[in-house]
């Protein structure tokens, strides 16, 4: 079975959880002898054919035009290059800004092509109408929409060179390309929902994106939702036919078990890890910090990430006069995230709306006592964590005070969490995804 896999993020292009989720998913699918053709928003027109597990880290490109291919072979024939040099050539770079935090994708993701005339490939009047709407919604001159057009165009160019059985598209940025591929080659479409515009915006969000999400799910043969929480949301908000929805939880790709702590601070560290946007609830984290520091000043609250609320959070935290007890790190790369986790004692995920939320699983693997909001998909599959409503500052405060006053308890819950997370593996979820594919062939 060969899958055309469309995603906006994949390591080393990481901005949020999507990259790591796709990585774990693809790795486990490859183990099940499913072939993957990966198309990413690279600067150069290329796709990646993955046949076995090893290919996932090499990301060996296949070029659409000979000029790029020759240039590539010229540059990298003598084996003295590093992998990151290849990635740079392809226009993949580490630590891009998240599409969801705003449209500040780095220049390196720029393409230079024009919008492909999708409707030439359509017959059905109803579909034509939907497509017309899709095109209208993509007509914005904003950076992000332009990049979606360019990605769609790139995928269309690849279609003549590849064969596949199913299209699997992740989140709205890839839905236009997914629909195009599915209609052009008459293959079934699986639309994967990692987050909706409702989650990202923490409110109503952008109507154009809602429409693209709606169309992407409506035209799909199967919709995979990362949690029951999200499945409910797409039924209630988008009226998607429940018969084609499959809930398949994200899992966690465990690289190694982290037993040893490498502390930065002598005092207990309480962490926020995620984009600093309304969706992730940073203001609740600050509110909790304010209360804890008043009672128990010998702690460090650390906020990791970037986002449109970052400046506001820096200013508000200063206004609360929390001295050096509330710090920010800005954007951290993978390695740095792991370093900060190994220095952390308690992590809070106070998301207002979180379709899944992979960060808590990673925290658990570091033996961190973890508090997650009930409004998250991940809370459906883990036990050894504290689950609270995102707005329940009182409860978060009392949990943390309890843990701080009882370090043994804090360590114990962390150990249980670390054990539990080893069981939440992608292999099980990949099996369910394969089952979903098989229903369509």
């Amino acid at each position, binding site marked *: 079975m060969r899958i055309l896999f469309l995603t906006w993020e994949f390591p080393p292009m990481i901005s949020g959880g999507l990259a790591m989720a796709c990585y774990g998913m693809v790795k486990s699918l490859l183990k099940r002898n499913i072939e993957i053709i990966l198309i990413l928003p690279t600067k150069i027109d290329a796709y990646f054919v993955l046949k076995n597990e090893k290919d996932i880290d090499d990301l060996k490109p296949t070029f659409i035009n000979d000029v790029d291919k020759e240039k590539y072979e010229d540059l990298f024939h003598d084996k003295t290059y590093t992998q990151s040099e290849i990635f740079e050539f392809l226009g993949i770079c580490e630590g891009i800004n998240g599409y969801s935090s705003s449209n500040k994708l780095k220049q390196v993701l720029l393409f230079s092509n024009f919008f492909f005339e999708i409707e030439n490939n359509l017959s059905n009047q109803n579909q034509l109408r939907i497509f017309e709407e899709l095109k209208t919604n993509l007509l914005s001159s904003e950076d992000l929409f332009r990049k979606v057009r360019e990605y769609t165009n790139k995928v269309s160019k690849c279609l003549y060179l590849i064969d596949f059985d199913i299209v699997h598209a992740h989140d709205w940025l890839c839905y236009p390309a997914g629909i195009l591929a599915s209609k052009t080659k008459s293959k079934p479409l699986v639309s994967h929902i990692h987050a909706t515009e409702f989650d990202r915006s923490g409110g109503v969000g952008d109507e154009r994106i809602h429409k693209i999400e709606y169309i992407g799910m409506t035209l799909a043969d199967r919709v995979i939702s990362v949690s029951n929480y999200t499945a409910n949301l797409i039924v209630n908000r988008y009226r998607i036919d429940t018969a084609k929805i499959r809930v398949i939880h994200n899992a966690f790709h465990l690289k190694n078990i982290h037993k040893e702590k490498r502390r930065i*601070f002598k005092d207990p560290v309480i962490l926020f890890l995620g984009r600093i946007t309304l969706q992730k609830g940073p203001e609740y984290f600050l509110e909790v910090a304010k209360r804890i520091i008043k009672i128990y000043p010998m702690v460090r609250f650390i906020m990791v990430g970037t986002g449109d609320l970052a400046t506001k959070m820096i200013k508000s935290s*200063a206004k609360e006069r929390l*001295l*050096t007890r509330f*710090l920010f790190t800005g954007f951290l790369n993978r390695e740095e995230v792991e370093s900060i986790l190994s220095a952390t004692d308690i992590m809070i995920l106070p998301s207002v709306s979180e379709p899944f939320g992979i960060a808590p699983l990673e925290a658990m693997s570091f033996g961190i006592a973890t508090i997650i909001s009930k409004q998250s998909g991940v809370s459906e599959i883990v036990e050894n964590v504290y689950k609270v409503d995102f707005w329940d500052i009182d409860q978060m405060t009392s949990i943390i005070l309890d843990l701080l006053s009882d370090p043994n308890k804090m360590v114990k819950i962390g150990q249980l969490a670390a054990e539990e997370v080893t069981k939440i593996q992608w292999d099980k979820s990949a099996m369910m995804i394969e089952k979903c594919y098989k229903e369509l062939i």
Partner: protein
Amino acid sequence: MINILIFFRLHQPYKLKKLSIFDIGSIDTVFDYNLSKASIEKIANLSYRPTLKLLLKLMDKFDSKFKFSISFSGLIIEQLNEYCPDIIEIIKELSKTKNIEILAEPYYNSLSFLYNENEFIFEVNKHINFVYNLFNFIPKTFRNTELIYSDKIADSLRGFTSLKNILTEPSEKVIGFKPGLNLYKAYGKNPQYILLRNQKLSDDLTFNFSNKNWKEFPLTAEKYSRWIDDLQFYDKKAKNIFCNLVFDIETFGYYLNESSGILEFLYDLPSLILKKGKNQFILPSEITNDNIENLELFSTKDYISIGGSSKNLDPYLGNDLQINSQLSLYSLIEQTKEQNNELLLENLRKLSSIDYFKNMSEYFFGTYDFSNFPSIESSYQNYLYAISHLEEKLI
């Protein structure tokens, strides 16, 4: 008679390293000494060396007719000692002429008087001793960080009996719309006299000299000396007019580069000022007034400063980033004192220089080349890392 008092000043803070959270507790110092060295050498080449040598030449030329005051933070002298010791030698040579006066100021260029009076007294005392040891001179005039003043400052200085004068900023709130060309008497007996910076003439040189859009551009020494002569018309009754010109040495050759003609301007100025015989250069310590009771009182409960357009503490303590970082600093200074950790305390005091807090202000941000951070938030973040690092070293 117009009395002209020129006050030059040298100051640069130590540059901070660009830190990440992972540096906390694991680095050997928060200061980037290489960058500090490069920066001091650059400023010394462009400004300190040529300007001070020029002043030495002027001293020679005019004998005791040309006089000026000079001051420097402890931080700049420490750095010059380390990186450009010849500059110290030039200052020593200047001080031998007896025609200069060295001012006292807070050693670390800080706002310590706001947080802890003892800390402030310690800094002033340290500076006075340091000036005495290095230049064999006992300061008689005080200028606070950013010329900040209120009656409380005079109170805190009461114990320093050698300090007779204070240099500060004229403030409408205190003297109304008067031109501020007089000598004022301070609240309390010691220090006695208040000298007010001549805002217009000082700023014209510092900010407008290279400003091509300014209606008086180009500013020549001839024009400038005429403006000084014209001061007599402001206050016909006054027997003695005081024109206090306050400049950063860095203005000469560094902020304003050599090609602007600023050094030639400085060279030409004294002879033009002295030409008509109606003006004289004097030093603050030469001020005598038999009739001190007749002087107008300069008294204010609110802080005034040289900063911004508000001329108060807002440019330094106007936003939460500045307040939170200064509170962090002074709370740690207190803890460190309790633990008698001298080395740590010294590093914290270096971090009290007001420059770091100016970098957290929208008003100053980007106007100073020492700001090597992209935003006020990143300056703040880096500063908190530095304090946190020292905090982890304690305990």
